[in-house]
Each structure stands twice: as structure tokens, then as C-alpha cells.
């Protein structure tokens, strides 16, 4: 394999092997349009040489920001072909974040999608003096921009084509000059606690992870997958391996908003989406079922328990008797298959989740409707570590350890990883690098264990395992995951800790679902704040908490809850860009509220900001209710 140790080398191989085959497809003007490997080659070549002509040299960094589109895919290859390093950025990152990453990574060029991204870059232009050129690929609305730092994708490609005519062998020579051990990509970690760190990955590391994924979820040439991940996600570059290494066709949806529709048209063989998306798919299904007619609801409610039964039996590897099998088949025909069709999962062989916690309840639900969700465990720094292969699915583990990866559990329960797939360093931060890589072992910061079947089990982040004042240990995310299965709960944070004797939760209600529920129960409300504080809504959520409490050990039971007057918001720094809770920040931000909960108060005044139609802002004072899960008992 050493011969093809970079994606650009594989590109050249694919063009020679099957240049006329479809490499990727994008939906444009309502039609799926094919691009062959030959097309890709031309695109990558002209862009690459254009960049080289502008001064891109081996080892230079190029920031890439935008939605996942073929141009981004080609740009990655073009940058790497020239020996450059792709700095993958989130398209929704705010200007200050973007400025930090571009400056810190020493990016020489920025390749961005459209007007929205260009505006963002121009806004921070003063603070990124190292950037020589900003290139955009979607010219819409760009006609009036005359900043000399801007160039369009097409302009650069023209420069590249001219360069290619003068130096016909330059492109291949550049690619030949690349080595697997060169840096290929820098991903900035979402920075739950501190400033984002630039994780440097080599071609070898990316290809090693991609190969592991392909081993447990093999796809054949010509099969379809669809991009679902932000291009800044490291999964995305592993995913590209299917295309370069296996010739799988990558489909690019029309717009992020049309994703569901495009899933359905393509029905990908392999679908990797985040736990949050699986959660929202399931709550969407449930909402739709609740809106459906009597007959549909009846059939759904009739067969779902059978689906659950079969799922449970097959999980515990017990025998399923014939009658049950027949009924389940019938359920599949009448209910489950149509649901899978609506979700675009008809042809999906490998439905995968990863990167964050997904409650076992969801696995069970999806299994009941015939979708055997499997997990992948990995991180930007560690690469792919474990994954479920067909026939080896265990809802509680995060997969079977992959071949070629060294994993051990340290004395304090930390998962340590060694091998080809781990990252090289944190860019310009040797101190931090030395903290996490010791003797070649990368310290993941995750706690877990390995069982006798070589399955890896993940508990939580080491620092997130928490204990109460009585010494009882609990994993907050686990409880949160269970609660989030309720379609009425959008987000939730568990509060407890060493100074406290019991657990409580802060809940974001799901405005849409509860709004619908309120409508059908003739409950009038005005705003999010108003709805969240209704007593009826409190009782509704209480039922969910009671249900979850039943499955928890006695000490971990949630005793109190607050329905927050707003949703946690990434723009306010409450969530990371991958929508994980920033716990420490939230603990500080809602300190008064949390204190009030443990002082056994019934409510606490809060001030919220409201925006009036004419643009004025005002403050409204309301009281947040503090509910007990057990209506009668006084906790304490």
C-alpha cells in the first residue's frame, strides 16, 4: 500500500484504472449530475497548479471553509497534491473563531464557499495579515466585491491551466514528491474547555483510519454514500477514503435543508451521522406518527412492541420463535419498511453513529424498526479505534477494537491508544502534545474498559465522571442521553457534584413537540418562556423523569428539575460547535439557579432579554419554577 500513501496518489491511480467511472455526484438544478474521475482530475489539477502559481509550497497551510460541496472535496485534493496542509474549518464558526484558527495555523490562503463566508473573512482581514489570497467558489452576489485579495475559483483554475501548459508534468511530479508521513490536514478541536488546538494529521494517519473503517464496513466500487458530515469533521476525511481507496460514489446533497429528501433519493449504503441527528430522526418519526391518522397510529403501536421484543431477543442472542418471526415480518412489511423508506435508509447496510453519546434506548428503537445501528469510536487525535462489524453488534459497547490499533486501559480507567492512526502533534503547542502523548501512547481522556470479546466500552470523559458527596459515582452524559429520548426534551444537563447529595437536571424543552402537544390539549401560550413555565408542561416532563428514574440506581435518581426559559446556544458559548454541552461554563452561568435548586426554593427570578419589532431591546423579569420529580416528597 505504500505506493499509494496519499489521497492525491490514489486519485492518479483511479484516473488510470477507471477514469470514465463516476466518482461523485451532486444535485444541481434539481438533477443529480455526475462527475467522473477524469473530471475530478482536471478540477484538482488546474486548481492545484493555480495555487502553486500563486505561491503555494510544500508544507504551506490553506484554510478551507464552507458547506460540503464537490469544490471543497477537490480543493482538499488540490492542496494536498501540492504538498500543502488543509486547515479544515467549520462553516458556521463565528468571525473571531475563524480569525484565531487562520492566524494560529499560519494559513497562506483561504478557500471559502460563498458570499457569507467571504464577508466573514473580509471582516477579520486586518487580523489575518498572513493570508495572501481568499478564493471563493460560489460567485453568487460577489459581482460588486473589488477587494484585490479576492479571486474566484474559476480564475485560479485558469491560472492553473496556463501553468499546466507550460509545465505539463508538474502536477504528477508534485504528487510523486509527497510522502505518507507528510502532514495532510489540521483539524481544530472544538475546545470544550480552552482555545481550539490544531491537531496535525499525516496522510498515513488518515489512510490508516480510513482502512479500519473499510475493514468493518466494506463497500464496493460504484456503491453510493452521501456526505452528511461537516467538512471540518475528521470523520469526513476518513470518509473520503471510501472514494479514493474503493471507488465508492460520494453524493453531495443540494442544500443542507434538502438533506432528508436527498437521503431518500440516494439511500446510501453507509450512513454516518452524529448521535444528535439520530436523535432528531427518531423524534421526527415519533412526531409524524403522532400526527398520522388513527389507523396508522394503531398499526404502529401494534407492531412496535413486537419489533422491540425481537430486538431484545436478538441482542441477548436468544431464540426467536416462529410466530414472533412471522408477526415481525408482517410489521416490517406494514410499518417498519415504510419508515425506513421515509428516512432514506432502505438500502443502508451500515448505519453508523459516533463522536458522542447515544442512549441505548435509541439503539433499541432503531433495532426494533429494522435498523441495526452500529457505533464507531475514534477522535481527531486517536483516529478510528473501534467499530461494530456486521454480526458483532453490541448496543452497550462502542465497537470491536480494529486491527492494527494498540489500545490499553490505564490504572485510572483511561483509554490509551497507540498506532499509525494517531496524530503527530498539536500545532505550535509542544507542551500540550507532551501532556497527551507519553511514550507513544495517546491519552484520550475517555474512561472505559475492554471486555473478553475485545469490545471497547466507553463510560464518559474522565473529568466528567462525577461523584456525589456520599461518594456515589455517576456518568452525567449517560443520564442525559436517556432523558433526551423523550421527544419533549431538546437538551438537558445533569447537575450534582461532590458538594451535593442528589442529582437534578436543567432541561431545554422541545418547543416544537411541546407546542404541538399544547395545541392538541388546548393549552394557550405566547412564547418559549411562557410555555416552559406552564404547570402542565412541568407534569409532562415529570412523567419522563419518572420513567428514566426507574432505570437508574437509587443514588443516581434525579430529584429536581428546572425547565429553562431558553435553549442552550452555541453562539452564546453554551454549546460547542458539535453541540456538546460546555459544562463548566454552564455551571458558572447558571450558578444562581443551581444554588436555588439545592436551597429548596420553589422558584427563582430571572431576567431575559427580549427584542421588540422596532429593534429595541428590553428586559423582562419572570420566575423560573423549580420542580420536584416526586410531587409529595421533600428532597434533601
Amino acid at each position, binding site marked *: 500500500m505504500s505506493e499509494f500513501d496519499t489521497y492525491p496518489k490514489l486519485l492518479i491511480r483511479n484516473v488510470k484504472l477507471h477514469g470514465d467511472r463516476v466518482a461523485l455526484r451532486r444535485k*444541481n*438544478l*434539481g438533477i443529480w449530475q455526475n462527475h467522473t474521475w477524469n473530471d475530478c482530475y482536471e478540477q484538482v489539477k488546474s486548481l492545484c497548479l493555480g495555487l502553486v502559481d500563486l505561491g503555494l509550497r510544500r508544507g504551506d497551510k490553506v484554510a478551507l471553509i464552507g458547506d460540503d460541496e464537490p469544490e471543497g472535496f477537490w480543493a482538499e485534493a488540490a492542496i494536498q497534491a501540492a504538498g500543502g496542509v488543509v486547515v479544515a474549518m467549520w462553516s458556521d464558526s463565528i468571525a473571531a473563531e475563524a480569525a484565531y484558527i487562520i492566524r494560529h495555523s499560519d494559513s497562506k490562503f483561504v478557500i471559502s464557499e460563498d458570499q457569507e463566508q467571504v464577508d466573514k473573512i473580509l471582516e477579520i482581514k486586518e487580523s489575518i495579515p498572513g493570508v495572501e489570497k481568499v478564493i471563493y467558489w460560489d460567485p*453568487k*452576489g460577489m*459581482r460588486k466585491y473589488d477587494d484585490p485579495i479576492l479571486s474566484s475559483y474559476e480564475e485560479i483554475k485558469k491560472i492553473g491551466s496556463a501553468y499546466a501548459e507550460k509545465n505539463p508534468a508538474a502536477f504528477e511530479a508534485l504528487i510523486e514528491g509527497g510522502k505518507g508521513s507528510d502532514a495532510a490536514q489540521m483539524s481544530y478541536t472544538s475546545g470544550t474547555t480552552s482555545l481550539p488546538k490544531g491537531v496535525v494529521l499525516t496522510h498515513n494517519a488518515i489512510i490508516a483510519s480510513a482502512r479500519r473503517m473499510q475493514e468493518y464496513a466494506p463497500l464496493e466500487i460504484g456503491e453510493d454514500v452521501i456526505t452528511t458530515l461537516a467538512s471540518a469533521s475528521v470523520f469526513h476525511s476518513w470518509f473520503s477514503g471510501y472514494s479514493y481507496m474503493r471507488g465508492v460514489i460520494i453524493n453531495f446533497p*443540494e*442544500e443542507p435543508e*434538502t438533506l432528508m429528501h436527498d437521503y431518500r433519493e440516494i439511500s446510501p449504503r453507509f450512513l454516518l451521522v452524529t448521535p444528535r441527528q439520530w436523535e432528531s430522526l427518531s423524534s421526527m418519526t415519533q412526531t409524524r406518527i403522532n400526527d398520522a391518522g388513527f389507523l396508522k397510529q394503531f398499526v404502529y403501536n401494534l407492531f412496535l412492541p413486537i419489533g422491540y421484543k425481537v430486538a431484545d431477543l436478538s441482542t441477548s442472542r436468544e431464540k426467536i420463535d416462529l410466530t414472533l418471526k412471522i408477526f415481525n415480518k408482517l410489521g416490517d412489511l406494514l410499518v417498519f419498511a415504510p419508515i425506513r423508506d421515509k428516512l432514506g435508509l432502505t438500502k443502508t447496510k451500515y448505519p453508523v453513529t459516533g463522536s458522542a453519546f447515544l442512549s441505548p434506548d435509541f439503539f433499541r428503537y432503531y433495532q426494533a424498526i429494522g435498523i441495526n445501528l452500529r457505533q464507531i469510536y475514534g477522535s481527531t487525535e486517536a483516529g478510528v479505534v473501534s467499530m461494530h462489524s456486521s454480526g458483532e453488534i453490541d448496543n452497550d459497547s462502542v465497537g470491536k477494537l480494529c486491527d492494527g490499533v494498540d489500545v490499553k486501559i490505564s490504572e485510572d480507567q483511561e483509554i490509551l491508544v497507540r498506532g499509525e492512526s494517531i496524530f503527530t502533534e498539536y500545532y505550535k503547542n509542544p507542551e500540550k502534545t507532551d501532556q497527551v502523548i507519553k511514550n507513544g501512547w495517546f491519552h484520550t481522556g475517555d474512561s472505559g474498559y475492554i471486555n473478553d470479546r475485545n469490545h471497547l466500552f466507553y463510560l464518559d470523559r474522565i473529568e466528567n465522571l462525577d461523584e456525589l458527596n456520599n461518594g456515589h459515582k455517576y456518568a452525567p452524559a449517560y443520564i442525559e442521553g436517556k432523558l433526551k429520548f423523550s421527544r419533549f426534551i431538546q437538551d438537558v444537563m445533569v447537575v450534582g457534584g461532590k458538594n451535593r447529595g442528589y442529582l437534578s437536571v436543567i432541561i431545554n424543552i422541545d418547543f416544537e413537540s411541546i407546542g404541538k402537544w399544547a395545541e392538541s390539549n388546548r393549552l394557550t401560550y405566547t412564547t418559549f418562556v411562557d410555555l416552559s413555565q406552564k404547570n402542565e408542561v412541568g407534569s409532562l416532563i415529570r412523567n419522563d423523569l419518572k420513567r428514566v428514574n426507574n432505570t437508574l440506581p437509587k443514588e443516581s435518581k434525579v430529584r429536581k428539575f428546572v425547565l429553562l426559559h431558553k435553549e442552550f446556544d452555541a453562539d452564546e458559548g453554551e454549546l460547542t460547535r458539535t453541540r456538546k454541552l460546555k459544562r463548566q461554563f454552564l455551571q458558572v452561568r447558571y450558578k444562581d439557579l443551581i444554588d436555588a435548586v439545592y436551597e429548596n426554593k420553589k422558584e427563582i427570578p430571572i431576567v431575559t432579554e427580549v427584542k421588540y419589532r422596532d429593534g429595541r431591546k428590553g428586559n423582562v423579569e419572570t420566575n423560573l419554577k423549580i420542580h420536584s420529580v416526586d410531587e409529595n416528597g421533600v428532597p434533601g
Partner: protein
Amino acid sequence: MTNDGNGGPILRCEDVSLKFGSIQALSNMTFDVNKGEIVSIIGPNGAGKTSVINTITGFYRPSGGNIYFKDKNITGLPPHKICVHGIARTFQNIELFRGLSVLENLLAARHIYLKSNLLSCCLYFGLAQKKEIEAREFVEEIIDFLEMEAIRKQEVGILPYGQRKRVELGRALALEPEIIFLDEPTAGMNVEEKEDMVRFILDVNEDRGTTIVLVEHDMDMVMDISDKVIVFDFGMKIAEGLPVEIKEDKRVIKAYLGEK
């Protein structure tokens, strides 16, 4: 920020008057719109803003005066003839086919470009097929332009208000007009929808070079994007000029705020 409108007048209204019985809705209205400009018409309720659009686009017949579009007299022509000249509009109260999809609404507007005989239409071959494909392609470009991919096949009746306004703009664009009249394009929208709409209006103006006349109540927006502002009161034009001039104009302030 927009085209300077140095293309010379594309639309002239000369002494246009409109009467409903004894009510004088418009009296001796005279103004020009230059090619490539964004012109806003403002004024208090009942000032005749919508009436003037209805008169130009043929929904009302003026009782006096002349309207010229590209030096052609279009006074009193019916709406379906006016739109063939390259004049399109949207309505204050959204007039779409509620039961049809977004796509179908836009395709319906392309009918003026679909010319083929009955036989080839029935059999869907030759010119009919070609024209149909062309129409779809054109409409898809508008869908892309206005970012309506996600609602392409949805029935218009179930769409939220802001999106329906967008569909209406799309339908106007499907006529490939040289001038578009927008009657309160952002009324009833939230801030985000407003920003989107303003961006689309500017894009239409810049990328397609379409002249735009809008009736609007949102003064911030009017002052921001207009090349010229015309102020109406009681069916008469009381001021005309650059946004900065209008802001200072005593008659305008009086019409809006009354006298001290």
C-alpha cells in the same frame, strides 16, 4: 451600493390620474424610473402607492395621462399584455395558486414563453418537449437563486408567509422582466426573513440588472437600498430625490408626522 441607474429612463409616468367615482386616487402623477435603479415609493396609508403600481401593470385603467415603458405607450393595456413587455410584479396580499407546488407556480409564469402547437404538446415531442425542458431549467435556476430547493415540491398553501413572499418574487422573475414592482415585499416578516429578502432584491438588481420599484414601509430598508425615493401623499407626488434628501425634506416629515 447599487447600479447608478445611468441607463436613462426605462419607465415614464406623465400626468397619470386615477379616479374611483368621485374619489381622486391619483392626480397628475409624473415621475421617471431609470434603467437599473432601485426606486422606492413611500407614503402614508391611502397615499396611492399600490394604486400607481396597479395602474402601471394594467390592473387599473388610468383616467388621464400616459405611461411609457421603453418609449412605448402602454397606457391602459390589460395585465397579460403588459407582462409580455417585460414588466412583472408581486402583490401586497400574495396572489399565488395555493393548491400548486412552488415549482408549478413558477412554471405557470413561464407560459408566455411556451409556444408550440396542440399536437406536439399532446405527444410531448419536438418543440414542445424542448420548450418544456427549457422552462424547467430556467425555473430551477430561479429556485437556486432564491434558495428554495427545500420547498420546491411543497404546496404553496402550506408554506409560511415569508416563504410565500419569496415564491412570489420567484414567479415575477420567471417572466424574465426588465422591471419588477414589489408591493411591500417584507411586510410581516421577521428580521432574518427581511434580511434574506433584501439580499435577494439586491442580487436581482445587481446580477440580473433588473430595475426595481418597491413600495415599502420599512424606512431603514428603504433608505439603505434605494437609489431614489418618491414620496406620495393623498394621491400626489410630494417629493422625489436621494434617500438623504428625503430624510431632510420638510414636506415629507409633515406628511408622516403631521404639523406641530
